[in-house]
């Protein structure tokens, strides 16, 4: 009977081997897919047991914190957004709730806020029995300027004909660091109300116009065209072209704003007075390839390199009717792209990056929300470290363009605007949405001071009737710049 006993033992060992195989399947090989199962509440519960770090603006305003709930040795923590008017920060900060998920900076900086560590550090902490605690985050946003931007947008929308019911956005960036100081979107939302929302999709104001809204840029695009023209060496500020209205562009007559007509004018004059026909000819002479080359350098045709969830940012570029981006090989009326028409759509963030690059001697810095991150013991774990995104134009081009844009604010379409009496650079834009109804989309982009740019800004209102960028968007931009320069 000994042989069958030995065989029986072998058989039982095989059964045990199967148990080991299945245990390793669940514990190791399939562990990740099990953790992702919707029925699995463990990650959610564990996540709630971590006291999440706070978020503070660069001027020291607390905008997000966590509170223990339920008590006991292992309480759960719930997020609150303690601002007086949380809608001001709702879009950039986003929200973080167990049931509803995360968006915005809460999502992109989750590893810091939740105290996620590398495997080694977390094993060490486990041995030392240190519970996971989130790190505190300081963001680049300036609460005062952010509030001012939202307030200004709201009052402009309320007081401008045709703007009611629509929104707007302001983005301000520090040219030499890429720090985003203002990222406003109106209407916004209160992240606190997400906690009790049965359906997040029903909440109004989730759409973040600064990064998700794509709009016709109008004449603000002429800054990109001018940068390409000067930097490619094909034009100088003195280059002469006809400013006559009604020149054929792409086989179709193009009119200047208000049908205004000019004779032979130089480049500087054309930018100052935003002459469409001049710029369209520049665009055609540069060609699609050169225009796209410079657009790409400014960051068009790609998701912005901002540290923000990429699914909450959109590309700027020439869009096909099916919503896909066109490239230089497609049939594009490049003369009209050069003046911000055609099927060109841009985000306010992208236009702020354009002026920030000009204001930083032609170098675009990677935009960022992260000022500083500290671990629970107060040690700095990450700090704003300015990073070049691309060399867009030469220093010379940048300084020529700065001078031209200064003329815009001194004697051109933005004349009458002031930023504390100092010289500043700007460009207005008034995209026509509906010519017959007189519906426009006003823009202003610029930076100040012109001599030593500290802040670059883009302002956009979604709609107004019979208005211009200089009169609606311009004053918002100058007040935001003033606020940031004084602060």
């Amino acid at each position, binding site marked *: 009977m000994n042989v069958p006993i030995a065989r029986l033992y072998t058989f039982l060992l095989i059964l045990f081997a199967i148990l080991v195989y*299945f245990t390793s399947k669940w514990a190791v090989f399939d562990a990740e897919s099990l953790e992702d199962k919707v029925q699995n509440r463990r990650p959610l519960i564990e996540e709630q047991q971590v006291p999440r770090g706070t978020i503070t603006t660069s001027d020291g305003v607390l905008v997000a914190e966590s509170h223990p709930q339920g008590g006991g040795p292992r309480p759960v923590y719930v997020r609150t957004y303690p601002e007086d008017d949380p809608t001001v920060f709702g879009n950039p900060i986003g929200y973080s709730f167990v049931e509803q998920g995360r968006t915005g900076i809460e999502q992109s900086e989750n590893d810091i806020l939740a105290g996620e560590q590398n495997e080694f550090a977390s094993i060490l902490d486990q041995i030392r029995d240190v519970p996971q605690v989130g790190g505190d985050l300081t963001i680049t946003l300036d609460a005062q300027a952010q509030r001012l931007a939202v307030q200004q947008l709201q009052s402009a929308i309320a007081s401008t004909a045709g703007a009611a019911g629509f929104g707007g956005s302001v983005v301000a960036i520090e040219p030499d660091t890429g720090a985003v100081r203002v990222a406003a979107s109106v209407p916004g939302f209160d992240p606190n109300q997400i906690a009790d929302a049965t359906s997040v999709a029903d909440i109004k104001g989730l759409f973040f116009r600064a990064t998700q809204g794509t709009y016709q840029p109008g004449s603000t695009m002429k800054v990109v065209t001018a940068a390409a023209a000067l930097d490619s060496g094909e034009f100088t500020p003195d280059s002469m072209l006809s400013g006559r209205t009604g020149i054929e562009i792409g086989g179709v007559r193009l009119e200047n704003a208000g049908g205004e007509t000019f004779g032979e004018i130089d480049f500087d004059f054309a930018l100052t007075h935003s002459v469409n026909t001049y710029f369209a000819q520049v665009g055609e002479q540069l060609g699609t390839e050169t225009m796209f080359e410079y657009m790409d350098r400014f960051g068009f045709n790609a998701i912005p390199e901002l540290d923000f969830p990429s699914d909450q940012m959109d590309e700027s570029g020439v869009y096909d009717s099916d919503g896909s981006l066109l490239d230089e090989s497609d049939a594009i009326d490049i003369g009209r792209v050069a003046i911000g028409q055609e099927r060109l759509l841009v985000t306010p963030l992208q236009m702020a990056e354009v002026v920030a690059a000009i204001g930083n001697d032609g170098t675009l810095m990677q935009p960022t929300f992260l000022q500083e991150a500290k671990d629970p013991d107060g040690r700095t774990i990450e700090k704003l470290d300015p990073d070049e995104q691309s060399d867009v134009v030469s220093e010379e081009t940048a300084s020529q363009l700065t001078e031209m844009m200064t003329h815009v604010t001194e004697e051109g379409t933005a004349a009458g605007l002031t930023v504390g009496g100092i010289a500043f650079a700007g460009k207005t834009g008034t995209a026509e949405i509906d010519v017959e109804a007189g519906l426009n989309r006003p823009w202003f982009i610029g930076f100040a001071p012109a001599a030593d740019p500290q802040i670059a800004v883009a302002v956009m209102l979604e709609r107004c009737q019979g208005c211009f960028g200089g009169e609606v968007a311009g004053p918002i931009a100058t007040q935001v710049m003033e606020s940031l320069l004084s602060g």
Partner: protein
Amino acid sequence: MSARNRELFALIPVALLLIGGFAAVFIARSDQIGDLSLIYGAYFFALCLAAHAFLRFRLPYADPYLFPLCALLAAFGLVMIYRIDDGFALNQASVFVLGLIAFCGTILLLRDYSVLERYRYLIALGGIVLLMAPRLPGIGAQANGAYLGLSIGPINFQPSELAKIAIVIFLASYLAERRELLSVAARRFVGLTIPPLKHFGPLLLVWGAAMVLLVFTRDLGSSIMFFGAFLAMLYVATNRFSYVLIGLGMFLLGSYLLGSSIEHVQERFDIWMDPFAPKSPEGAGQVQQSLFAQADGGLFGTGLGDSLLKLPGPFFPESCQTGFPECGSILPAPHTDFIYAVIVSELGLFGACGVILCYALIAARGFKTAIMVPDGFSKLLAAGLTTVFVLQAFVIIGGVTKVIPLTGVTLPFISFGGSSVIANMVLVALLLQISDRARRPRAGSSPVTGTEEGLAL
């Protein structure tokens, strides 16, 4: 070194595990002050030493590793249960006292276990009564759709735990007597040796009993255990694989036919096929939670006391009357059926492999005893007891890891539960008695003879 001294040394890992385990749980819950844990450990280790002293006196030649291996599992179980709930650990520790009394009692009363052969029909009857008792009105109790427990006053008892020993004793003595008859040459059919038809009788009888058990108690786990042990013993007795195949086929067919008509069994089967099916029965949550708990473990686990078990704060159900761990645990029945999932969660794949290795080593010692002991009844008894013990571990670990449908049996020596500990202590006592006979030096021969060729250990 004598067998008993080896046994004493083999108890050192038990002591280390007790100290390390209780210390780990104690550190993990540093919010609670108390030195209760070390008292538990010392108390338990003292019991082990007492049992060792008893063995030294009564069974000096018995296998030196069987008892330390079981003590290791029991100590491990005590640490795990202490981690889940200290009240339950105190309860479990007292059960070990009863278990040791049963252990010593078995050895003392049953000076010569051969007498069991004489009372085999009485024992078989007792076993069947024990199995059917949970179905009796008044004392039977239903849990999760199966009839497993007896409820007499305040005492809850799972008679199937003791019944498994009774049935193995009966089968061992029956097969020892009939093995010559059963293994006589038979016809061959399509490459299979078919036993003579008249010998199908006992096979059919046990098959019928397993089916009746399934229908009456709806307890698939016990059915698998009993029938599996029966087939294993039949194979050992006859060395005919055809019996096993036929028996297995009959069991599968029977449980398929009966299972599909018993909703509870059918449900378990559906859950086993796909616990994440969109319309899976309510019980699927148990298996899902078991897998999620294991996924949390990884290679090394979260550490003793550090996995998520008790639902925190607002997640703890307000309606929870009985208290943790009976409710309010993310993993149902963490101290009984799903204790293996807690082990994987907290000690990882490596800890779980350690537990499985312990069972494999116990199996090795049990089968070695079966090989060494000279007479047929002892061989069959040792092999049967070992098989039924190991199969029980397989059935519950297999259920928890979704190798087979989940059935509610305890993880021997580790799960919380009095009847399980007591029955398994009796089982080990019997194995030790058999091994004492196997290794007892006979006149003119050395204690360990060359009969170990079958097993490479």
